[in-house]
């Protein structure tokens, strides 16, 4: 709507000349937006209506049950998801941001190896997640001997989203005007002081948004975790990084493939929980962005 009511711009002035084409273009834009929005809304209302009867405290207070959909819950999957995603964040964010700082502030782009690294990071971001699952199974679970545990899942998901964190952080760091760096250096600050006190604080909004989007991707992944021994039935919460676990997407998949109708309702309710967790994470990103946004 905001687009429609923004007047007095160059676009509006120009539109006086060719009203029909301009209008068609504007309608095409709004239609594109509507497609994304309508599908999201349809999905949301579908799972809400479908899952409504089971969208209550049983879902997070009870453990899974294969015998009775009425007493089944997803507590182990919810805690499993929170464990996996927290450890993933702990491992990925520092590494990703550090790598981005190196590439933006230190790396000499005239050197061929730095260009190779850049190209590879972009390629890594496009690798299907199941490939990371195979990597995690062969190297992290078996060669490193970490087994089918929370830490294996976190490291694998961390590797999966690391390129996204690096790329987003680089964009954010690059968006800080060079004049800020030059000013800081001119006042006698070292390069590290410039980065830690000027560049990083100024790029936090962008880094936070990118990181949360990356973690949101990780939270919805089921394919690599199927390889990494996320179990489909567990009645315990993880009690450490070496514990067995399951995550919400796996639990949802498991419930959907059950033969009893009651479990399909549960699956929808669990989808709502997963969406709520995602929504909370995205809100955190928006809050961080607004809190730290600076205008030059």
């Amino acid at each position, binding site marked *: 709507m905001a687009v429609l009511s923004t007047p007095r711009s160059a676009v509006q002035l120009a539109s006086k000349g060719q009203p029909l084409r301009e209008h068609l273009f504007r309608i095409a834009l709004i239609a594109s937006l509507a497609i994304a929005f309508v599908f999201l809304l349809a999905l949301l209302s579908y799972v809400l209506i479908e899952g409504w009867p089971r969208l209550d405290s049983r879902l997070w207070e009870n453990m899974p*049950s*294969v*015998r009775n959909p009425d007493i089944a819950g997803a507590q182990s999957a919810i*805690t499993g998801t929170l*464990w996996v995603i*927290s*450890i993933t964040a*702990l*491992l990925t964010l*520092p590494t990703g941001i550090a790598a981005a700082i190196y590439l933006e502030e230190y790396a000499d782009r005239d050197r061929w190896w730095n260009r190779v690294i850049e190209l590879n990071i972009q390629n890594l971001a496009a690798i299907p997640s199941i490939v990371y699952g195979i990597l995690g199974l062969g190297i992290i679970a*078996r060669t490193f001997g970490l*087994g*089918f545990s*929370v*830490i294996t899942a976190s490291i694998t998901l961390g590797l999966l989203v690391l390129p996204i964190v690096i790329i987003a952080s680089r964009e954010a760091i690059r968006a800080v005007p060079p004049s800020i760096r030059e000013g800081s250096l001119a006042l006698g600050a070292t390069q*590290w*002081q410039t980065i*830690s*006190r000027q560049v990083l604080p100024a790029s936090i909004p962008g880094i936070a948004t990118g990181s949360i989007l990356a973690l949101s991707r990780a939270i919805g992944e089921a394919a690599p975790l*199927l390889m990494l*021994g*996320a*179990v*489909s*039935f*567990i*009645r*315990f*919460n993880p*009690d*450490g*990084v*070496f*514990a*067995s676990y399951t995550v919400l997407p796996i639990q949802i998949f*498991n419930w*959907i*493939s*059950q*033969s*009893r109708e009651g479990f*399909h309702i549960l699956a929808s309710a669990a989808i709502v929980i997963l969406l709520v967790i995602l929504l909370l994470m995205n809100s955190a990103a928006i809050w961080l962005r607004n809190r730290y946004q600076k205008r030059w």
Partner: protein
Amino acid sequence: MTSGQRRLSAVATAAVVVALSAACGGTNTTPPAGEGTTAATQAAGAELTGQVKIDGSSTVAPLTSAAAEFFAEEQPKINVTVGTSGTGGGFEKFCNGETDVADASRPIKDEEKAACDAKGIKHSQLSVATDALTVVVNKENTWATCLTTDQLRKMWEPAAEGKVTTWKQVDAKFPDEPLKLFGPGTDSGTFDYFTDEINGEEGASRKDYSPSEDDNITVQGVTGSKGGLGYFGFTYFEENADKLKAVEIDSGEGCVAPSVETAQNGTYAPLSRALFVYPSATAAKRPEVAAFLDFFVANINKIATDAQFVPLNAEQEAKLKTDFAALKTQAG
């Protein structure tokens, strides 16, 4: 300067914390740390702790999951986990020493046995329930009440690919209705069993059918098309008996409908099959695994009935108990 140092040390602390948590089980960083039940600690009285890891066939998983659920009422501190990597995936982990019990919807293959032997994993096969692979058609299908195994082969054999597309081609008496086939994907033990029994070779099947790892999709597919036909485990048919019709199977000795009885006494041939669990003899030495297996075998038919499997008959149950006793002696 000082604030710079503070930031630096904060970063360093964070790094140390991460490294520590990775090194020693994370009990010191993350909030809901339990009482360290992961490692099998000593038993306090009759209450055991520890973990039993089960993985394998998704057909058998509901049975072992139900067993785990009943077992939790007796031993609430033993953590039984059930994975669904498929029969093949389950054996791979089992023979690698990563799980204690493998769920299987077919017997172990020779190469899998060799992998187990190479790692020194002793195991034995326990038949724990029976399944009747059920061939289903649409409710409006009035012509196919009984199919012979030859007719089924005509529909499913690799040579039928692209050629057999109507019911009339299967049998001249059938109407000229398009034949739409649904079934499990190639990773499934159900697929292996069906192709072996019907087409004479494991894995040999026409490829132009709608495969799905989720049997509910097969239910939807067959419900939605008049000429539809699909197959899956008996449980799925029981749940959807109001939407679908089960076909009787004639393997040369008359038409037999799938049911608990015909599966148990073996007259529903060749599509009734045994479902297995393979416990590792080494793992069965651990008190928590032994306790779980004891419970599972002792209550097998109660669990099977509750999980909507076809339970064992008296003879099969007796055999299970002898097999299990043999495993325990092997475990020592």
